[in-house]
Each structure stands twice: as structure tokens, then as C-alpha cells.
């Protein structure tokens, strides 16, 4: 087993870490009125500032998780990401399966963010770069700095389709989180007889491990 294999998995860790940071960044901009009037840049700047404050605060892990949850719900378009991740299976899922999936997906997202928040990202800072428009969404470049780690380039996709700016995707090291996640889910469903219920069962198991 050579080094490239380890590099690939190392990348995955990085990707997951960036997911966390994206979630963290996305969780901080919950200021009523600000989101509707501010640009995508301001939106990211604002929630980023709030998040860094939470991460570097002296609260307990459970208090941090509790503070994070409403911020995620308000600033990440979890439903939209969830639908995207289910891909072609969204069409074949029953209304009940869709509701169940989205409910679980919210929990998966919150767990993914809060699980690694403590420790891994202590002392984090970030800078925001250029913003460009693409297909009606705004793409905001950023650099995340963690003590003792090389700077990480990320790109957040901000959509206003839900009525206010919300994060709909995160790219870390060139890989889109939602696209990668969709690959994971689509493949799992395909490996399990094309049944959405199999994915729901797996997610239930995953969520219960974290509760």
C-alpha cells in the first residue's frame, strides 16, 4: 500500500474538516434583517465572525452544540442540500420517505458540524476573498487559517432562492461537498436494491450512534 492511498484518505479528512468549517461559517449570520439586505460577502463575514466567537468561547461542548443548531437551521439551506444529495432518487421517493430523509439529513448535518467543532478548530480565523455570480447564486472565496495547519481554500455558494441568503454548497480543495455527498448516497442506494428506504435505515443508524 503506497503513499497515494493515504493521501486520498487524507484528502477526505480534509474535505470533512472543511464541511465542518463550512457549517460553522454558515451558522453565524442569523441576524434578522441583515441577511435580506446584505450582500453574500457581508452574509459570510457576519456569520463567520459569530462562529469564530462560538468556537473559541469557553462553553462546554454541549452548550456549543445547542448554540450551533439554530444557526445551522437559519443559515444553511439544509432542505435544498438534502434534495440535491438524494439526486434522482428524490423523484422516486414517497412523500413519507422524503420527509423522513430530510428530517434525518438535518440531524446528520448538525452532528457533522458539532462533532468536530471542539478541539479541531480552536483558534480558527478566516479571510474572505472575491465574490462572483454564477447561475443566480453567489460564490464567495475564503481562506481558513488554523494554528499549525496550512491555510485551506474554500468556496461557499450562497443562494437567495429560499427568500434570504443561505449556504447551499461548500467547495474545499476543489471538491463540492453536496456533489460528493450525493455520490455517497446514490451509490449506497444503488448497492441496496435502489431502495430509498435502505438509505433512511442507514441514516437512522448513523444518527442514533451520535445521540
Amino acid at each position, binding site marked *: *500500500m*503506497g*503513499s*497515494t*492511498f*493515504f*493521501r*486520498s*484518505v*487524507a*484528502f*477526505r*479528512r*480534509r*474535505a*470533512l474538516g472543511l464541511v465542518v468549517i463550512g457549517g460553522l461559517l454558515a451558522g453565524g449570520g442569523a441576524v434578522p434583517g441583515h441577511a435580506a439586505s446584505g450582500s453574500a460577502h457581508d452574509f459570510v463575514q457576519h456569520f463567520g465572525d459569530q462562529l469564530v466567537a462560538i468556537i473559541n468561547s469557553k462553553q462546554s461542548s454541549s452548550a456549543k452544540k445547542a448554540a450551533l443548531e439554530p444557526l445551522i437551521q437559519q443559515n444553511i439551506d439544509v432542505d435544498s442540500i438534502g434534495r440535491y444529495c438524494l*439526486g*434522482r432518487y428524490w*423523484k422516486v421517493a414517497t412523500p413519507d420517505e422524503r420527509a423522513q430523509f430530510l428530517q434525518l439529513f438535518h440531524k446528520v448535518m448538525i452532528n*457533522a458540524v458539532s462533532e468536530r467543532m471542539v478541539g479541531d478548530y480552536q483558534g480558527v480565523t478566516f479571510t474572505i476573498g472575491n465574490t462572483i455570480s454564477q447561475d443566480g447564486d453567489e460564490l464567495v472565496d475564503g481562506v481558513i487559517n*488554523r494554528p*499549525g*495547519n*496550512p491555510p*485551506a481554500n474554500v468556496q461557499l455558494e450562497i443562494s437567495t432562492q429560499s427568500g434570504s441568503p443561505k449556504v447551499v454548497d461548500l*467547495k474545499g*480543495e*476543489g*471538491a*463540492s461537498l453536496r*456533489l*460528493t*455527498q*450525493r*455520490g*455517497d*448516497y*446514490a*451509490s*449506497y442506494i*444503488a*448497492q441496496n436494491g435502489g431502495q430509498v428506504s435502505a*438509505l433512511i435505515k*442507514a*441514516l437512522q443508524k*448513523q444518527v442514533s*450512534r451520535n445521540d
Partner: protein
Amino acid sequence: MRAVTLTKFFPVRPGFARGAVRTATMAAVLASAACGPLTTPKPTDPDALADYREANDKYEPLNRKMYNLNMKVYKYAFRPVGKAYIWAVPSPVRDALGDMVQTMNEPIVFFTDVGAGRPRRAGDAFVRWTVNMTAGVGGLIDVAKMLGYPHHDDDAGLVLATWGVPSGPYLFLPGMGPSSFRDSAGYGIDVGLSPWNYVPRGYGLLTFNWAYNIAGIINGAANSIDAFDQVQRDALDPYAFIRSAYQQQRRAQAEAIKNDHRATTPDWYN
């Protein structure tokens, strides 16, 4: 834990046991060929076909076997060894070893930067090599980074991509991990570009080469233990997650090289 990424963490060391890897690959391919289909049939449903094309994984049954094989070797060999290594070797020593492996790889980065027609990047790689091999005590200290020349990745697979060579189907190779037809051909070119394969093979050098490679691999495995554990915990199908992330990242890396039009003069001169 030391920062680990696909691009920055652990450079390719094409000198390592090429014959062994090739033999293992061939043996695995032949063994798999004897017990099941090698390719996934092309779906007819348009939505399923779109997924099939996006995954670009014609040889999925074979690739999954290779992936499972890799994971077994990792679980029973590299993970326990890596854990022991982390326990026994202090972090600064592990970091220094990682830096050395990265520096030893700079000649390949230099030559491929030249191949991609990017003199600024090639110059950076050249500075890194010369500074780290001298002031950095054979690469153990990343002095070049402190001077403003951080490491960047390049390899022959990426150069071929910038030349417009298509990736071909996805491959998961034992000992190498995620790849493609183009990237595995690029790996062969990288082997040829590594100067370590052209120095005289004295007993001392052979000993050093093996010690260096084995230490490098254990170091890499140790740095990736958390990552592996996380993959197993968080992904429903880690194979598919890695496949998607790898393919996207290679596209982004090639794009970044294509778009790097920086002047050859250093930043402080401008």
C-alpha cells in the same frame, strides 16, 4: 495531528518498490478476473445513465475489490503499526520526516511544472529543492516555506490533463489508491522523472532507500489514521465518497495549473 491533504500531505514517491506494486496489482487483477464481472453494465434509464457517467467508473466491480483489499491491509497492518509509531515517535520528528519526503519529491514537481509550461511554478519547486536540501538539512526542515515558497503539487497525470488528455475511467489500484487511466500512466512517467532511480545502487544507498520509503509509508499511514476512522464512521459508502472527491479534486488541480499565469519574477520584485 499534522495537517493532511491530498495535495499537500504526502508526496508521491515513485521509487518505492515498483516491482512489488506492479506484481501485486497484476496478481489482484488476475485473481479478480477469475471470480466475477469486471465492468458495470451501462444502464438504460436516462437518470441512472447520468449517474453512471458522473461516476465514470466502468470497472467498479474490480475497483471495489481492490478497495476492499486495500482496506484489509490497512486495518490489519498499517493501522496498528501507525498507532505504535505515533506512540513511540514524537510529533516534531514525524513532521520532519514528512518534510523530508516532500522535499525528496520536488524534482518530480519541478519537471512536471516545466512540462505544464509554468516557469513560475517550476522556479518555486527548484528553490524549494535547493534550499531545503542545503539549509533544510536534507529536507528535514522546510526552510523554503519559511522564505515564502510553500509546497505545491504537480505530477505527470496533471500535466497530461492540462494538455487536454481525457482521464479515462476511474481506477482504484492496490498500493496506489484512487486513480484513472491517465493518472496511472502519469505515475509511470513520474517514476521516470525521479532522480533517485538513476543514482548508482550501492549497498548503502539501497539500505537508505528502503529505510526512507518504509519510514515514509509508516509516517503517511500514521498521519492518516484519524482520517480513515472518520471515513468509516461518516460515509455510508466510503468508496463512492473517495471516488467523487478524487475526481473533482483532480479536475480542480488541473484547472488551477492552467489558470496560473503568474510572472516569473518573484512577488517582492514587482
